[in-house]
């Protein structure tokens, strides 16, 4: 690994761009996915009629992953005959050229990412079912409202699950590749040029193994640093029963 690689990296516009694309995707996709999957898990946990059906129906899309999912959504976002623009037409919105317009391509991939929230919902649901009934009962007897009960009892009890999902979610979105490779090839105008796609192109299309390895190292460091940072800041809100660590 030569220092020249680093020198070149810091002058490489595509390197910075791929970091920005990946960060933007992560910062938007992960929090919203977390929020939605927790919200639906809470809803399903309310003993709503047919909740077993909802659980399976919501998880079902998560089974369609990888290239199948990318192809399906490529088709859903088709400007002329796609389902998405058809749905928008009910709201009087003109067809959007999702993957041909650099202002929309990354947004389309972010919207796509919400489709897989069923898996996260299942994990939250398992966490919610582990909240002891006597604690909820005690809160109710103390006259705590729903909101208070959630913030003071339920959330602390599932906070380790929340942390786990946050870390997994961030690490996964740092490594987006399939969508970029299958659908956009990093375009239009580099607007979906994700970090790992950048590594792939440099190593296996331009055959610059050393240069790409330098970037791979930086990814590893970034994953470690971000995980450490999330763990550190989590001490404020994560509660472990018995005070031990997970």
């Amino acid at each position, binding site marked *: 690994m030569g220092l020249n690689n680093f020198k070149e990296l810091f002058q490489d516009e595509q390197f910075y761009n791929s970091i920005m694309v990946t960060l933007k995707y992560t910062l938007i996709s992960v929090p919203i996915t977390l929020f939605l999957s927790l919200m639906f898990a809470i809803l399903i946990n309310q003993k*709503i009629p047919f909740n077993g059906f909802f659980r399976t129906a*919501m998880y079902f899309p998560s*089974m369609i992953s990888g290239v199948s999912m990318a192809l*399906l959504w490529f*088709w859903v976002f088709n400007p002329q005959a796609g389902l998405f623009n058809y749905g928008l037409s009910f709201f009087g919105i003109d067809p959007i050229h999702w993957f041909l317009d650099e202002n929309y391509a990354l947004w389309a991939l972010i919207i796509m990412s919400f489709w*897989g929230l069923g898996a996260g919902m299942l994990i939250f649901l398992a966490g919610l079912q582990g909240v002891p009934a006597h604690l909820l009962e005690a809160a109710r007897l103390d006259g705590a409202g729903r909101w208070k009960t959630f913030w003071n009892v339920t959330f602390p009890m599932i906070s380790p699950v929340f942390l786990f999902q946050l870390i997994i979610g961030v690490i996964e979105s740092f490594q987006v590749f399939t969508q970029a490779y*299958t659908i956009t090839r990093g375009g239009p105008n580099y607007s979906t040029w994700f970090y790992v796609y950048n590594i792939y192109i440099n*190593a296996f299309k331009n055959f610059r193994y050393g240069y790409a390895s330098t970037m791979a190292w930086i990814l590893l460091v970034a994953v470690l640093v971000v995980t450490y940072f999330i763990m550190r800041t989590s001490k404020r809100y994560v509660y472990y029963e018995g005070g031990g660590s997970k």
Partner: protein
Amino acid sequence: MSEVTHDASSKRIIVKRKLKLSQIVGFLILLAVTITMLSPVWFMLSTSLKTTKEMLMFPPTIIPKVFAWENFRELFTNTEIKFGQQYKNSLIVGIFTVIGTVLSSSFVAFGFARYKGKGSGLMFMLVLSTLMLPYPAIMIPQFLLFMNLGLHDSLLPLILPAFFGSAYMIFLLRQFFSTLPDELYNAGRIDGCSEFRLYWNITLPLAGPALATVAIFSFIWSWNDLLTPVLYLDSQENFTLPVGMAAMLSSKFRLAPWNLLMAASILSVLPIIVLFAVAQKRFVEGIVLTGIK
């Protein structure tokens, strides 16, 4: 006193009614969300049975006017696509990955769970630390290694790593093996079992559920993986499904054959859905344990 209880009881009635209303609202929200989330699945199904002409209609027809079953036939008869061959490749890679992962990870996990000696803790920490390694960080050296071994453009680079254990599965199985009582092993030793038989005849049969979870998830990982096969496979007859399907979008067709692509997507999701239907409990357990989508 009576007043208080009366008060409490009337309050309870109100709470009950509130719950009822909130349940109805919740039900309606979930219904709307589920319909929205499942509509692309329907779009996939209906597109796969449309003729090329109908597929491009706007607004899209909900149910195909003519059921074009020939789309599915075309996948297997069209010599340019090689779909059947690629399906077989994916199955081969998937099955061998499962065999490799289950055997090697359980063997290593057995060692970590049953033998506590000098440095075993350190060794385990080393294995766990590889969990933090994202695949892109190791793919280039691994690629160069397999290149030097002359294994490029074959399925072996996709299968072999599985026979060297996976940190995730080792961790999962070690946790499970640690819960097995020592008496079992002492009894086995007294009966003259070799250490290998303790692993093969006592531990593995008892670990059925944990092994099933490992098998299901290692299969799904390998089945959906795109990045690894894209690196290694060059010729079309060696492609796994994800690579083949991504390649179907290429310029070979003047117009992307969306109906064929959707048919291919359905067929490629099928094994996963079958696994889910057969082993739903293991599935949910595995997701909760691993956080895998």
